[in-house]
């Protein structure tokens, strides 16, 4: 075990840190922030990703052949830390494009698919979305009903998807579709790459309880998909989707999220240090300090859990149910963090927007956090996976 860094790793960190100092606007994270409007924010994040790419900091751990720089997993972790330190913006294409589509294609795509798609993911020229869940296939994902019928050199796709993040900004979609309705439900699924500009696709934004519309419903009406845009074999989609989900819940994702939670926790601590109530500083309230200590510890453990998984992969182990452990932990810990934030804000916690402490960011995050334990595989699904695949308990 060794948490110290090699000279090469330290050099990587220094280079990134100095690049970030130049690339981010002056006053970033202190006086300058992301746009509030959702569409503007999406454009802002896409611009930021393109800037990262121009600087050579996009998809760093991908092979050089597809535009990456072949960075090690440790460098990937340093990357996450430095982004956190600089409070750099999140990306629009990171979660689906980089983490899901990229990694899935690297494992299961044909060489032609890799050549066609990977460079444009890394450059963020093409944004991706994920069409897996359906109204009746949520936790029970293998029940997807969206049909893809083979006609000549095309698949004809009909059906409905739901919870599609950023579909409104996406150029492409990975979709899990049913190609054989006659067989056992897991055995009749395929994995398609669908151009979002194809006629027959309708998007309807879904508002969340936070008021934002990160998610969408997607309707496919006789959508034509060229046959070469299948990943893997026909009816072999389930196993590929499982790879995708393992990356969705993996340490790369967890480190990115930890970055954001750490920023918000630090902001909470500095806010409470300056917030006065009944003549004292809120930060000095021993009851609140106990809860803060728990969140400080849990946010640190989020990072350590992710680093442990990365180290397991470095030491030759495969991705497995460890990703479910990680997701279950961070999702519930983050909910506790925002519950604590609102408790600490006290009598004025109900205020929203400009009148609220810290501009209402903790209230918004609190609302958003309610979804953490549901999306990307609900806590119930993660517990099944851990119980059965890791602990070996019977189904």
């Amino acid at each position, binding site marked *: 075990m060794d948490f110290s860094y090699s000279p090469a790793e330290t050099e990587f960190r220094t280079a990134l840190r100095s690049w970030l100092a130049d690339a981010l606007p002056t006053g970033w994270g202190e006086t300058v922030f992301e746009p509030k409007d959702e569409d503007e924010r999406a454009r802002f994040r896409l611009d930021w990703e393109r800037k990262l790419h121009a600087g050579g900091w996009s998809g760093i751990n991908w092979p050089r052949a597809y535009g990456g720089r072949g960075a090690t997993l440790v460098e990937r972790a340093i990357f996450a830390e430095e982004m956190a330190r600089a409070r750099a913006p999140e990306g629009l294409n990171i979660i689906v494009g980089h983490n899901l589509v990229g990694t899935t294609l690297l494992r299961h795509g044909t060489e032609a698919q890799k050549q066609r798609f990977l460079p444009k993911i890394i450059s963020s020229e093409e944004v991706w979305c994920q069409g897996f*869940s359906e109204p*009746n296939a*949520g*936790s*029970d994902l293998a*029940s997807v009903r969206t049909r893809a019928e083979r006609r000549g050199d095309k698949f004809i796709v009909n059906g409905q998807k*739901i*919870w599609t993040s950023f579909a409104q900004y996406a150029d492409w979609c990975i979709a899990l579709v049913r190609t054989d309705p006659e067989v056992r439900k897991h055995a009749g699924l395929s994995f398609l790459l669908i151009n979002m500009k194809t006629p027959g696709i309708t998007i309807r934004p*879904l*508002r*969340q*309880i936070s*008021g934002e519309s990160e998610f969408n419903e997607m309707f496919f009406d006789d959508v034509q998909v060229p046959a070469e845009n299948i990943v893997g074999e026909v009816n072999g989609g389930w196993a590929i989707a499982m790879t995708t989900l393992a990356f969705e819940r993996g340490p790369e994702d967890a480190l990115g999220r930890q970055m954001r939670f750490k920023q918000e926790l630090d902001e909470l601590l500095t806010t409470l240090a300056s917030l*006065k*109530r*009944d*003549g004292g500083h809120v930060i000095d309230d021993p*009851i609140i300090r106990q809860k803060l200590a728990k969140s400080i510890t849990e946010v640190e453990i989020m990072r350590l859990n992710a680093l442990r998984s990365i180290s397991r992969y470095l030491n030759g182990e495969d991705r497995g149910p460890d990703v479910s452990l990680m997701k279950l932990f961070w999702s519930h810990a983050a*909910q506790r963090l925002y*519950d604590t934030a*609102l*408790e600490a804000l*006290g*009598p*004025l*916690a*109900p*205020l*929203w*927007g*400009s*009148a*609220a402490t810290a501009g*209402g960011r903790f*209230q918004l995050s609190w*609302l958003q956090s*309610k*979804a953490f*334990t*549901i*999306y990307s595989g*609900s*806590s*119930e699904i993660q*517990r099944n996976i851990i119980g059965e695949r890791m602990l070996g308990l019977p189904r």
Partner: protein
Amino acid sequence: MNFGFDGTQRSLGDTVARLLQSVPALTAPDLDPRQSDRVYEMLAECGLFALLVPESCGGTGLSLVDTALAVESLGGGLAPPAVIATLAATDAIVRHGHEGQRRELLPKIASGELRVAIALLEPGCGYDPHTMKSTIANGRLTGRKLLVPGAAEADLLLIVTGSGGKPTLALLDARSGGVATQVQESLDPTADFHEVVLKNVAVRPESLLGGASPERAVERLMDVSATLHAGMLMGIAAQMLHKTVEYAKIRVQFGQAIGAFQAIKHRCADMAVAVEAGQSAAYYAFWAIAEDSSDSPRAAAMAKSYCGEVARMVCNEAIQVHGGMGFTWELGLHRYLRRAKVLEHAFGEGAWHNERIVAATLAALIPETNRQWEVA
């Protein structure tokens, strides 16, 4: 001894619940504070505001415990918090108003003609009425009040403030000179919160409540408000439990209703236990404050603290069991989540009331002299 409600009490609860159900906008997903404009009038027409007014003043002459189920229905139906502010103010006037206030105001409150908003919170203060910065000096009240529900529509403001270093209650015309009211953005815009700025507002001695012991009037208002809030919170929790169980019966995954899975079934059971326990605490507090029982401050504190925790847990679990649908705007569960949160933070959160619970328990258990014992 009977810890159950009688026919009249149950029927009041049902009436209020049905009446609110007839206003779909109340529980609609969108956060429009105006969607409930008509509700106050409807509740007045059905006699809600007359319940606590003595018969001699044109009311029904019931006690707070008679309203417990009605208050729960107000909570579950997402009635605006301004409604319970008027109920709490009615109790304050009945118990601590002078003859003039009772005679002049109570009949109009009973008929729905007068609405009262309660102003407690101030910037930089907690919930303790002793620490408020607003004060009455030389017959003038100056201060700034936050998160006052329904202040813009209110005819009267019941203001928790200080006078001569002691907490007191001033009951003022909302249109008095020097009163400025402005909408405040909040987590639950439908709670219709306002900031009220008071600048040298004239306060005549006859506008004060509580006579020679204004502190008792303030304490009672806090206890009554805490109890009413606990009742509202239990209404939300019961409603969330109900919706969750119904959803678990019809939502199918893996070939069966999700309510058949222990992961869901056992969670619903835990929600039911929490609702039962919270109702026990809330109902007892209603009884204790109605009877002015000596343990009523402690009972009110227990109810507010515990029911806030219950509502929080139940709302979170309700969203979780509803899965993806739970966090959509359209299903509207967020309305209950938001309302529960703002009620949790009104008239004392858990930690504040917990401190009061311990203090009251120790005061009853241990005579002060014993506190200094030492163990070798």
